[in-house]
């Protein structure tokens, strides 16, 4: 029973809960047990409050028994990336700086989950302050890819991706600043989606790069991802960048195929540096669309070659400012020894942040400095506008753009850690969606010859999540990718 529950998707679990076949406590306990069994090897979670999870689940059971009205995720466990604030829970951002920090307030998305009677399952690992593509910059642990423990689950939302992949959670929340949901989804073979910038409130998401950050869902199928997005999307007056636009019911139309679907393919996404297995799987996926009657067109995103450069000006600049508050004065880590105020700042930040965070703070501080601001930041914003215009033009021609999520499948832990530039290039296909603010989804489209998952990325015009999800669902149904569970038994510590 227990292992069946952890293999079951969110929508099916809801049906089991509604019919009373299982209780919320059963579901929670199954996932807690699964975490207990496999997370020693995967290390997806930074913290799990078992007692609280069971108590929350019991409360939902009680509500159901007494006939109280229940939210749409009643009793479903949801894992939370450890940079999304939930009252009473840690929000370490995988940083020494916030190791002891407990949030006194709920992020908007957490409020939505609580209102939907979801059960907050635990806090998942990430690259420190979401800066990274591998979970290796976590100050606490490197999460392992459930498909191959030697490999990275991707990042920065690697913990959430691995948790969903390994059956430790049916759903999870991540955040995506430059591919941080889609790349780990692709590496772990799950569905991960970055909504349109402004679709989901950022209130309570610990800011990395404010103009790029967006919270999104992880699930094992498109349907479940659509369900979670429906819960968390929508306007929040506490985030002035959240857009006041109605949220359609994604689930209502999800199974309706899009007639006359026009799919754009960007030649630059299939150029040098793309792994041949990845290319084959993605081309196969595009062929599936072709077989479904979709029209495949080449579209050009001429400025996408500047994406990584622009991103590594804009994101660190904003990060250098957003992370200034971690100064040891008001909360979080403070160095034990220092000589005066300036030294307290220096000692605290020197010891509290890891190398990757420091690297980006320095990059951003430099780019915003007087004398360099125009040459770097202002120029980057101009190119960013051109990138957005490229997308606007492309979406005049096509409904969705399809391509690879990453140039290669999951890399080995340690492989890129000393080569930041190669690490950064991992996000070459995903970053443009953040810069342009458009929604993007990564969905499994098969495996490489070495049995590593490959992801298909679809992007759509702003606020076209409904179309994006329907297009993704069309592929998922037609391709009928066999459900494969990672060989966790092979993991050291894995007992399944």
């Amino acid at each position, binding site marked *: 029973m227990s292992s069946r529950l952890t293999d079951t998707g969110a929508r099916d679990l809801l049906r089991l809960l509604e019919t009373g076949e299982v209780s919320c406590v059963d579901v929670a306990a199954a996932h807690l047990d699964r975490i207990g069994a496999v997370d020693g090897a995967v290390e997806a979670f930074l913290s799990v409050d078992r007692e609280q999870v069971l108590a929350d689940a019991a409360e939902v059971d009680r509500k159901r028994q007494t006939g109280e009205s229940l939210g749409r995720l009643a009793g479903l466990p949801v894992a939370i990336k450890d*940079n*999304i*604030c939930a009252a009473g829970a840690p*929000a370490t*951002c995988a940083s020494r700086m*916030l190791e002891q*920090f407990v*949030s*006194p*307030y709920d*992020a908007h998305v957490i409020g939505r989950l609580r209102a939907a009677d979801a059960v907050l399952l635990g806090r998942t690992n990430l690259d420190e302050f979401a800066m990274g593509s591998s979970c290796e910059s976590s100050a606490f642990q490197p999460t392992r890819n459930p498909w191959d423990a030697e490999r990275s689950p991707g990042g920065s939302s690697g913990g959430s991706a691995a948790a969903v992949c390994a059956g430790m959670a049916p759903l999870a929340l991540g955040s995506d600043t430059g591919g941080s949901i889609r790349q780990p989804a692709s590496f772990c073979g799950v569905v991960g989606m970055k909504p349109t910038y402004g679709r989901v409130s*950022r*209130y*309570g*998401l*610990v*800011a990395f*790069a*404010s*103009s790029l950050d967006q919270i999104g869902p992880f699930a094992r199928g498109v349907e479940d991802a659509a369900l979670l997005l429906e819960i968390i999307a929508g306007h929040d*007056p*506490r*985030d*002035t*960048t959240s857009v006041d636009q109605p949220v359609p019911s994604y689930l209502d139309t999800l199974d309706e195929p899009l007639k006359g679907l026009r799919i754009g393919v960007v030649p630059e996404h299939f150029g040098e540096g793309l792994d041949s297995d990845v290319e084959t799987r993605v081309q196969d996926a595009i062929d599936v669309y072709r077989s479904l009657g979709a029209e495949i067109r080449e579209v050009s995103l001429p400025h996408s070659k500047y994406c990584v450069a622009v991103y590594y000006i804009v994101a660190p*600049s*904003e990060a*250098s*400012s957003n*992370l*200034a*508050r971690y*100064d040891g*004065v*008001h*909360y979080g880590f403070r160095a034990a020894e220092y000589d005066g*105020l300036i030294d307290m*700042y220096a000692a605290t930040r020197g010891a509290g942040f890891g190398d990757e965070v420091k690297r980006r703070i320095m990059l951003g*501080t430099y780019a*915003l*400095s*007087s004398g360099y*601001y125009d040459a770097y*930041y202002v120029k980057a914003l101009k190119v960013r506008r051109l990138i957005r215009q490229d997308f606007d033009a492309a979406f005049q021609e096509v409904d969705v753009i399809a391509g690879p999520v990453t140039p290669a499948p999951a890399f080995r832990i340690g492989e890129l850690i000393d080569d930041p530039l190669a690490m950064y290039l991992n996000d070459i296909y995903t970053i443009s969606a953040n810069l342009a603010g458009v929604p993007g989804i990564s969905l499994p489209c098969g495996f490489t010859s070495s049995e590593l998952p490959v992801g298909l990325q679809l992007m759509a015009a702003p606020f076209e999540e409904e179309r994006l999800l329907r297009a993704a669902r069309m592929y998922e149904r037609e391709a009928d990718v066999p459900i494969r569970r990672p060989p966790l038994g092979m993991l050291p510590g894995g007992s399944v």
Partner: protein
Amino acid sequence: MPDVAHTPVIGLEVHVQLLTRTKIFCGCVNRFNPDEPNTQTCPVCLGLPGALPVMNREAFRLSLITAAALECELARFTKWDRKQYYYPDLPKGYQISQYDLPFSEHGALEVTTESGESRRIRIRRVHLEEDAGKNLHDESGRGADSRVDLNRAGTPLLEIVTEPDVRSAAEAKSFLDELHLLLTYLCVSDCNMQEGSLRCDANVNLHLSTGAGDAIATPIVEVKNLNSFRGVEAAVEFEIARQLKEFHETGRKLGDPGVEKETRGWDAQRNVTFAQRGKEEASDYRYFPDPDLAPVTLTDEEIESIRAGLRELPAARRSRYRNDLGLSEYDADVIVRQGERFADYFEETSGICGDAKQAANWVTQDVLREINDRGVEIGDLPVSSQALGALIGRIVDGTITVKSGRELFGLMLDESERNDEHSPDTIDRLIEERGLRIVNDSGALESAIAAAIAASPRAVEDFQAGKQQAIGPLIGKVMRDVKGADAKAVRTLLIEKLKEA
């Protein structure tokens, strides 16, 4: 060093806390409350991870009103920028402020200097930002840790920057007085300097002319955190003298190698400015647009409606009082300076009694003295403008004397509660009850005079012997006998009778 003519060149930077109900970016109450530190805070103004700012519309509206009253151009597009520096009272490590596109620029404020000269001080810019918290240092000398109170963090703050148009310490004070008055009229700030809701920095240097036609200037000094208008005046005065002396001693001037803008503090106890520890290096605030706050655009209609909604400003009132009501410049200024409610009181009084000058005399003397003595606002004075207007009306139409008017005013003041029912009728009733009506009945007067003369032979003798002052007690007796008698008429009649006798 030859004698040099010098012109002080002074620019002011004024920080004004706006009177909004809530803070600028969160829902916390905006109230001065140093006694309960960190009780008016939330994730946003504490700068907690993940918290986001939301612009307070009311703060922006008050800012627009103020800038419009300062004759500024209002920008069609404005945005907020992060000014980045580390300080314990700044929880986010940056202050949300405005850098290159402030919401308003190019205004002016007309001030009248003490010599009565009118001068236009140009406003360079007005921008809106958030106030920081307050560092609380251990003052016991025991070296305890400093603490930070963030109740003030996030208070909406207007920064008003003048061009260097101010030419003397007195003029700096006049500017601040006029600005204070304007802000009070607009009800945008309580301008309480003790509570820090109005703070001022002054940039001071001297332009020197040695007669050789060369233009040289002393290094610019910024005197920081002046917390009273007198303090600004005194600090500028001190700087002018200090800079002149320093120039004579060192010859250091603006533009010399190594000469940088200096920041000095003001010691209000010793009345001197003092060098503050120089900043380690020129600050680079790394301003950039705050990605959490959308820029604001204003339409021409919105700008027009802000301007159209402006109430009458102090300068306009003064000139109306002079030109339409015929008041002296002095009276107009005294009335306007007391604030809008006082000026309204004057206008109501004047309208009822029909004599603006009489009304001005009463409010600038009797009324002002009363409210100052009582330490109350005009609204708390027991005598309403209707009552005072009716009272003055009876003086103006000759029913009672000014002296009787004062007596009546005193009576009404003694009433414990403000009586808005005092109409001309009740004033008239009081006049009759007290017998204050001017007596024009010469028969009654004549018999009272005769009685007084008969009763005081000694006084009559003295007067006739040339002691002019001996008439006083006689006048007093007549006045006591005939309430409402006109003292001047009594004196004339008495002298006539005494000369006859």
